[in-house]
């Protein structure tokens, strides 16, 4: 199949997953029921910071229906601590971390014990009978308090709460500042939030004599697979991932604690054990995005050219070292956003506090990086009295620079940043709005236009650019498999190398296979959920990192091409024609009409997949010589041009990710002067996701990620009290926007195919979550211009906006 030869790629074909989900027939972990199954519940820390004086199962072990209790002592006795992984690459001193708190609790909700009973309510009742004695310690809830010289240590081993400090620097930053006409500075901040997937964590462990099977709604099975294997010291582990109700990064990391606990409980009791997290547990302890504070200076020329940036980034990583540096390292992915600026220094500090540990969240690090760039572009424009769009245009990477290599080594294959801006401005009617603003009226209406990069396809070696001495290379580049099979009856089944969290992977992959094999998507199905013993998975097996479009699509395309080869070989043999005379269409292999004008004379002109299937699997006598039976193939895909830049060079340049989509966002908002409420009147996106396999799937990703980013900007978020208690335990208190607050998202696609991917595709999964917080900030600042207010931090709750009007007045 060539790029132009597509019937299904590019079409918004009907979703394969939607029918089962809208009719309530999805299969999630909680839908699975096994014989003799127990139900587990986790006892969690009520304190933000405390020493565990003692913890014993005591009365709980003898309560009705209870089969097992696991305390921290059991965990230490029976499991090996987690290895500090990629996410903690910056950890200087080894700190053993277990599935439960040991010795100390470091955040409210930290797991302390687990109980399993014959029913969930019994397990919950028994929880109250576990005796834990705590000795409370001072709770540290801000990075300033944590970094104070006399602060109580969260990890004694580290000797400080500033657990990591480091920097990256590209170009000649000092020279850039020396050359500058002036320096524009700002202190910026982004708060803690989460994508709050509809389905919280879920684990079900089945300890059969042959092996231990974990059914789990994880995004990156490798994490739980290795966690169980290492913690319990067993080889016979199988991980299966059924339908998953949303991931967004939440289900990558901390879920491993519960996988280990549930597995240990299953081994201890000899029974299947199910553990389903509830909403409040998820809010407390499943992971938050990182609250980040940035002190930024921009070296600028009076014409608006930005010569360089200096950023001091303080990341509040919460009460665990296990994700110490992941928010910092992810900034390498879009370090320069869409700009051709050559000089940048980013200093990082990862500070421990008594809050929930941080985890990746849709775009991790990248929304922060985009926020920095776009806030600074507006700040530069204000300082210089220039138009904010003109300042952006002055600094964008231009058309003739593609493929463009960023100073830190990312290679951006293609893009049209000026074009995205042009269209966004036109679609929202920028000039008219500006003109109306000049005529002056009482309404506080503001417009913000920003641009952002959407990196995709992870390079496993990225973090070695910052931590060259990492003892264990986490891998390099990306490898991911897929299997495609024509069944004996002629239908087609495929198996992907990574699980899905609801992003319609079955639908899109089927479209690829459909075009390659010439069979409608209706006759193609996915083999079912992910299974570690059946799925062909490599280092890129992750429902994260915007990996799917690059690796899984590449793999399923490659596998389908191999099957196509087999089909052609077998059909040519059976039809006694040259392969080049054959074509595949609607599940039938036939002669291309023009290639075989007298075909009728030579016997049958066509053969169906079903006929081929019967022969390939069951009739060796009819197979051509040397033909391997069956019509199945597995293919492992890697980025064809991963080098140069797969391994970091001595200056720390590396290809952090491999593809780069982009988008311009334009927001029109109105502020209520009495209440401070921001209403989004219009929200326009112009998006380059490269070749789209299924535009409606891409739209779905954009709608969801924009809705989330806008909600983040306008108020959703986690709030802690001074005592380290989480005050936002329910979705109501957490404050997620509803459909009533979410504007209509107006999308225009402006695809520029990627030169390096299989079909020209780019990523679409993190999408609008990256630029939208910046777009809202920009628009609100513009609306508040009568007050001279500057928007520096999120969220823009009504009260904060009211304060901005109030304080500036």
């Amino acid at each position, binding site marked *: 199949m060539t790029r132009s030869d597509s019937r299904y790629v590019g079409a918004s074909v009907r979703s394969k997953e939607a029918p089962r989900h809208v009719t309530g027939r999805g299969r999630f972990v909680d839908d699975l029921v096994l014989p003799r199954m127990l139900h587990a519940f986790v006892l969690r820390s009520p304190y933000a910071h405390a020493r565990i004086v003692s913890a014993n199962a005591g009365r709980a072990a003898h309560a009705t229906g209870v089969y097992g209790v696991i305390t921290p002592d059991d965990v230490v006795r029976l499991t090996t601590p987690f290895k500090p992984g990629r996410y903690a690459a910056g950890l200087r001193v080894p700190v053993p971390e277990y599935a439960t708190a040991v010795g100390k609790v470091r955040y409210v909700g930290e797991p302390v014990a687990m109980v399993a009973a014959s029913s969930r309510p019994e397990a919950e009742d028994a929880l109250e009978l576990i005796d834990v004695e705590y000795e409370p310690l001072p709770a540290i809830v801000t990075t300033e308090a944590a970094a104070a010289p006399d602060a109580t240590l969260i990890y004694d081993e580290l000797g400080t709460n500033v657990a990591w400090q480091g920097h990256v620097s590209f170009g000649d930053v000092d020279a850039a500042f020396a050359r500058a006409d002036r320096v524009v500075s700002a202190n910026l901040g982004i708060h803690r939030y989460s994508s709050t997937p509809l389905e919280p964590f879920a684990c079900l462990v089945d300890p059969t004599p042959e092996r231990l099977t974990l059914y789990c709604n994880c995004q990156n099975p490798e994490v739980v697979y290795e966690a169980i294997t290492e913690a319990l010291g067993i080889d016979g582990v199988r991980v299966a991932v059924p339908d998953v109700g949303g991931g967004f990064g939440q289900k990558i990391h901390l879920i491993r604690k519960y996988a280990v606990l549930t597995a240990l409980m299953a081994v201890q009791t000899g029974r299947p054990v199910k553990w389903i997290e509830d909403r409040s547990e998820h809010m407390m302890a499943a992971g938050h995005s990182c609250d980040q504070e940035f002190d930024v200076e921009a070296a600028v020329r009076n014409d608006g050219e930005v010569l360089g940036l200096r950023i001091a980034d303080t990341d509040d990583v919460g009460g665990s070292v296990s994700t110490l540096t992941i928010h910092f390292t992810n900034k390498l992915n879009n370090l320069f956003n869409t700009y051709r600026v050559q000089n940048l220094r980013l200093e990082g500090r990862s500070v421990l506090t008594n809050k929930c540990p941080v985890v990746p969240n849709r775009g991790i690090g990248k929304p922060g990086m985009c926020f920095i760039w776009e806030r600074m572009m507006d700040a530069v424009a204000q300082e210089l009295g220039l138009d904010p769009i003109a300042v952006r245009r002055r600094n964008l990477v231009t058309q003739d620079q593609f493929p463009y290599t960023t100073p830190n080594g990312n290679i951006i294959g293609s893009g049209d940043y000026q074009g995205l801006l042009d269209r966004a401005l036109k679609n929202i009617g920028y000039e008219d709005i500006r003109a109306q603003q000049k005529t002056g009226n009482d309404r506080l209406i503001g417009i913000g236009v920003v641009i952002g990069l959407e990196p995709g396809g992870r390079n496993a070696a990225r973090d070695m650019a910052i931590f060259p001495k990492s003892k264990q290379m986490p891998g390099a580049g990306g490898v991911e498999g897929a299997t495609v099979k024509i069944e004996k009856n002629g239908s087609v089944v495929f198996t992907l190398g990574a699980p899905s969290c609801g992003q319609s992977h079955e639908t899109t992959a089927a479209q690829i296979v459909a075009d390659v094999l010439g069979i409608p998507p209706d006759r193609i199905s996915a083999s079912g959920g992910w299974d570690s013993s059946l799925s062909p998975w490599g280092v890129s097996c992750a429902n994260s990192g915007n990996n799917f479009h690059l690796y899984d699509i590449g793999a399923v395309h490659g596998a389908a091409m191999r099957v196509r080869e087999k089909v052609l070989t077998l059909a040519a043999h059976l039809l006694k024609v040259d392969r080049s005379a054959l074509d595949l269409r609607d599940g039938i292999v036939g002669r291309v009409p023009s290639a075989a004008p007298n075909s009728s004379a030579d016997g049958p002109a066509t053969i169906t997949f079903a006929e081929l299937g019967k022969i390939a699997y069951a009739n060796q006598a009819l197979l051509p010589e040397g033909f391997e039976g069956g019509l199945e193939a597995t293919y492992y895909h890697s980025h064809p041009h991963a080098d140069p830049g797969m391994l970091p060079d001595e200056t720390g340049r590396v290809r952090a990710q491999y593809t780069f989509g982009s988008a311009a966002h334009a927001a029109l908002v109105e502020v209520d002067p009495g*209440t401070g409420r921001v209403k989004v009147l219009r929200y326009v996106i112009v998006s380059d996701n490269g070749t789209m396999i299924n535009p409606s799937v891409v739209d779905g990703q954009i709608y969801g990620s924009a809705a989330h980013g806008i909600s983040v900007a306008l108020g959703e978020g986690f709030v802690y009290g001074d005592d380290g208690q989480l005050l936002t335990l329910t979705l*109501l208190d957490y404050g997620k*926007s509803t459909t009533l607050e979410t504007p209509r998202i107006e999308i225009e696609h402006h695809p520029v195919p990627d030169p390096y991917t299989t079909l020209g595709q780019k990523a679409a999964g993190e999408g609008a979550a990256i630029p939208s917080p910046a777009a809202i900030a920009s628009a609100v600042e513009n609306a508040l211009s009568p007050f001279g207010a500057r928007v520096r931090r999120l969220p823009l709750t009504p009260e904060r906006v009211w304060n901005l009007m109030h304080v500036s007045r």
Partner: protein
Amino acid sequence: MFPADFDYVVPRSVDEAVAMLVHYGDDAKVLAGGQSLIPMMKLRIASPRVLIDVNGIAELAGLRRDGDRLVLGALCRHADVAASPLVREHLPLMHDAAQLTADVQVRNRGTVAGSLAHADPAGDWPAALLALDTHVTVAGPDGTRTVPLAAFLVDAYTTQLGANELITQVAVGIPPGRTGGAYAKFERRAGDFAVASAGVQVTLDEAGRCAAVAISCGAVAPSPFRARAAEAMLAGQALSEDLLAQAEHAVRDEASPFADTRGSVEYKRHLAGVLVRRACVAALARARGERVDTLHL
């Protein structure tokens, strides 16, 4: 998130319900819409041993007009109020409050009486109905008694209701004359509890001046309250912009909110004033016969 163990009983009449309340005493809780009680039980803030489900008592359902009063049975749901043309015409303040309470699912189950019994300081019904002539009727072992709402509400989450009493109805006087009411609520997002709310009922005299006014404020004090100082400023006056601005200021001083995740003390005071003013404007327009939709702020 499972409640502690409990028993469940279903009375068929008010008398039977009262008998059960007497029998089980403090161990029992009445279950109406369950929209406050069940979440508290799941969080194990409440662990009643017995639930007395009154939903099967037919005589407690619905709402009706009884002369110059609107009578809500104890099982009248928020959604019943929202859908009632009678309410819309004569008590638009209540129509607003019903529209602005929670979300569709909660409105379909939750009851006005349950909301008063629960007495959440940020609840919409206690605040809204305080601006109207509202009486609560309760049945107990010694028969029934009727109390004005202001007396019924004692403090945050505290009412005059005895442990073995049941609310049977809530009656609201239909205000006579050239009158209009409105309820304004500021919520962080649709379906949330109020950050601040205000109910205003204004009656105009022949000359178009304010003959009578009632102003209630919700969520900005331990209990909803009547803003008497602001009322006194407006009563008998022509309601000019200036005067409304003064009332707005007066309300700020009358409020005594506490800070929480919904807002600081200062912001809530400010909002209370803004809401009273906006509700006044809407109530005034309605009193003059203009059509004003429920305010969505």
